[in-house]
Each structure stands twice: as structure tokens, then as C-alpha cells.
């Protein structure tokens, strides 16, 4: 039905797309370490060596873990398997709350203690009016 040239062009485009997809996939796979925006507390525990580099730790703010001692904010980031203690002083975003997502940027003191230089609140995918939220909580 179609000419030989048409088929060849189709095959040509197909091969280009396939090769490029594979290449990009391999590049991203090998760069995974740098593509992720933050590490979870469990991933921090498995780090082979302590790095002095700035890193980001993310997870949930553990319920009832926020306390302020000597103008320093202390809280615990958890991924429900492992936890890490965070110390921070500075501005916090409005959405920073217990039981909600957070990303802390800073330095590891050891595998259990993290001093943050910046706190970002992570919003989740749930969108609803306050009344619906209240009704959900009553259940």
C-alpha cells in the first residue's frame, strides 16, 4: 500500500525514538542518586559513610514531636520505618505541621541527628474544602 520510502522513513523514525528513549532511560537510571529531591530516613541509615555535603531529608513530621528548646525547633522526620531528629532555627513555611510532609535541607551530624538550614513544607495530593475535612475527621 505504501511505498518503500515511506516504510523506510517509518522505520528510521522508530529506530531514532527507540535509541533515544533507551539512552535517556540509562542516563536517568545512573543519575538516580541526583534526580531524587530528598532522601528518606531509611536511606540515610543505609548510607555507607557520613558526607559533609548538604543533603535533603524528607518524610512526615512525627505527631507530637515538635518542641522548641532555646529558640531551636526540634522535630522528628519519619517514613514510618525509620526516624531522624532534626534541629532548626529560622523561618518555617505556613504549611509546616505535625503529621504532614516536610523536606529539610542541611547537614548530617550523625545518622540520627540532622541540623537543617532550610525547611520546606511538602504538600500532598489531597484537595478538599474545610467542611469536608472536618466531616472526614469525625468519622
Amino acid at each position, binding site marked *: 500500500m*505504501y511505498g518503500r520510502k*515511506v516504510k523506510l*522513513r*517509518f522505520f528510521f*523514525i522508530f529506530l*531514532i*525514538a527507540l535509541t*533515544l*528513549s533507551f539512552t*535517556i532511560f540509562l542516563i*536517568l537510571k545512573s543519575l*538516580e542518586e541526583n*534526580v*531524587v*529531591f*530528598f*532522601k*528518606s530516613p531509611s536511606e540515610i541509615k543505609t548510607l555507607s559513610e557520613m558526607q559533609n555535603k548538604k543533603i535533603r531529608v*524528607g518524610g512526615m513530621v512525627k505527631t507530637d514531636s515538635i518542641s522548641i528548646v532555646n529558640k531551636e525547633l526540634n522535630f522528628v522526620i519519619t517514613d514510618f520505618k525509620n526516624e531522624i531528629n532534626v534541629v532548626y532555627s529560622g*523561618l*518555617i*513555611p*505556613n*504549611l*509546616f505541621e505535625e503529621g*504532614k510532609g516536610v*523536606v529539610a535541607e542541611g547537614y548530617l551530624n550523625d545518622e540520627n541527628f540532622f541540623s537543617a538550614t*532550610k*525547611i*520546606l*513544607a*511538602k*504538600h*500532598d*495530593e*489531597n*484537595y*478538599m*474544602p*474545610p*467542611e*469536608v*475535612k472536618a466531616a472526614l475527621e469525625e468519622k
Partner: protein
Amino acid sequence: MFKYFEPNKIFSVTSKAPKYVLLLFIIIFSIGLTEALIFSPEDYKQSHSVRIMYVHVPAAWISLGIFSTMTILSIFGYIFKIKNFFLISKSLAPSGFVFNVIALVTGSIWGKPTWGTWWAWDARITSMLILALFYLIYLIAWRIYDEKEQVYKITTIITILGIINVPIIKYSVDWWNTLHQPASINILSKSTIHSSMLAPLLIMTAAFALFSLLIFLMKYNTELIKIKNKGLDRL
């Protein structure tokens, strides 16, 4: 079917269409804006800043949709040698680029009060920036190359390179840890956005789609006029 490209026949339809599209756009856009800014509820957590989402999400969807359409048109145009497809693709690009920039800017405005930062180099945001760059490269390529056959090939390659980025944008939030939240609207599983917020979002998407169509028709008509007046056939 596509072999016989007749600018005159197409033009007789596309030259009349814009005014109707504009009228429809104004109606849908006013409904969408009142729904989004007045009648829709505030979010339990973000309060009123959730309203940025009604511009941000449709803009992002449209820019992804337009780039995908451009790629399909370019590939088919290249394989079957259909000139018209390249012209359609070229006319679609500007509105896709504008919506891409709108998505980035509104995301940044939303990010400051919500996350606490204007910009983060996370996978979703960075890949969206890369898409904007691809749009830019595509648009510039049409300006640089005067020779038709050459520009068709080059823009096809650009769209193929760029389309690989599209699934990365879509799934970046699932594959990697990102600051950006995962999708709230899912076709296969339950959506996590309340229906009172979903309605204005969909109306705004329809409005933006109509706006893209309007800009597309205006660009496309210009292209057809250039072909009719052969001497002016510089892009």
C-alpha cells in the same frame, strides 16, 4: 487524502472560525473564572492559594497536550510527506509555549507560600523547564532555516527529542522523591480532589483549550495567506 493540500479550501473555513471560537472562549472563560475565584471553596490546608491551581494545572495540561500533538503531526508529516501537518504543528507551538511558561510562573507563585520556596530543582519542575526549552528551540528552528525540506526534518527531530521528556514529566512524581505532589486526578484510581474543586478546574481547562485553538487558527491563517502570496513565503 492529505496529498492534495488546498490552502484555499481550508482557508475558507479557518478564516471564519476565529470569531466563533473567541465568543465561546469568552463565555466559558467567564464561567470558569467566577467558579474558580468566587464559588469554589478554599482548601482546608492551603486556603485561598489553592485558586492558583485553576490556572496552573490546565496550563500544564495544555502545554503537554500541544507538544504531544505537534510530535505526532511532525512524525506523520515526515513519514507520509504531508506539508500541511508541519504548518499545523508550527501554528500550535506558540500557545503551547505560552501555557508552559504560565504553568512555571504560577507554580512558582504557589510554591512560595506553600512550600516556602520560589524554585526547587526537583524532577517535575526541572523537566517542565526542559519542555519550555524544547518549545523555544522548536520555535527558533522555524526562524533560522528558510529551506522547507530542511526545516521539516529539523523540527521533526526536535519534537522526537522533546517527546521523551513528556512521560518523564508525567511520571517524575511517581518515580522519584519530588517536592511536587503526585497527581490528584487519576483515571484508573480514585481522584483525591473534591468535586467542588474539580468542576472549575475542568471548565478552566476547556477555556484554555479554546484559547489555544483561537491562537492556533490565527497563526494558521497567517501561514495560509503567506502560501497564497508566494512572494511573502518567509516564516
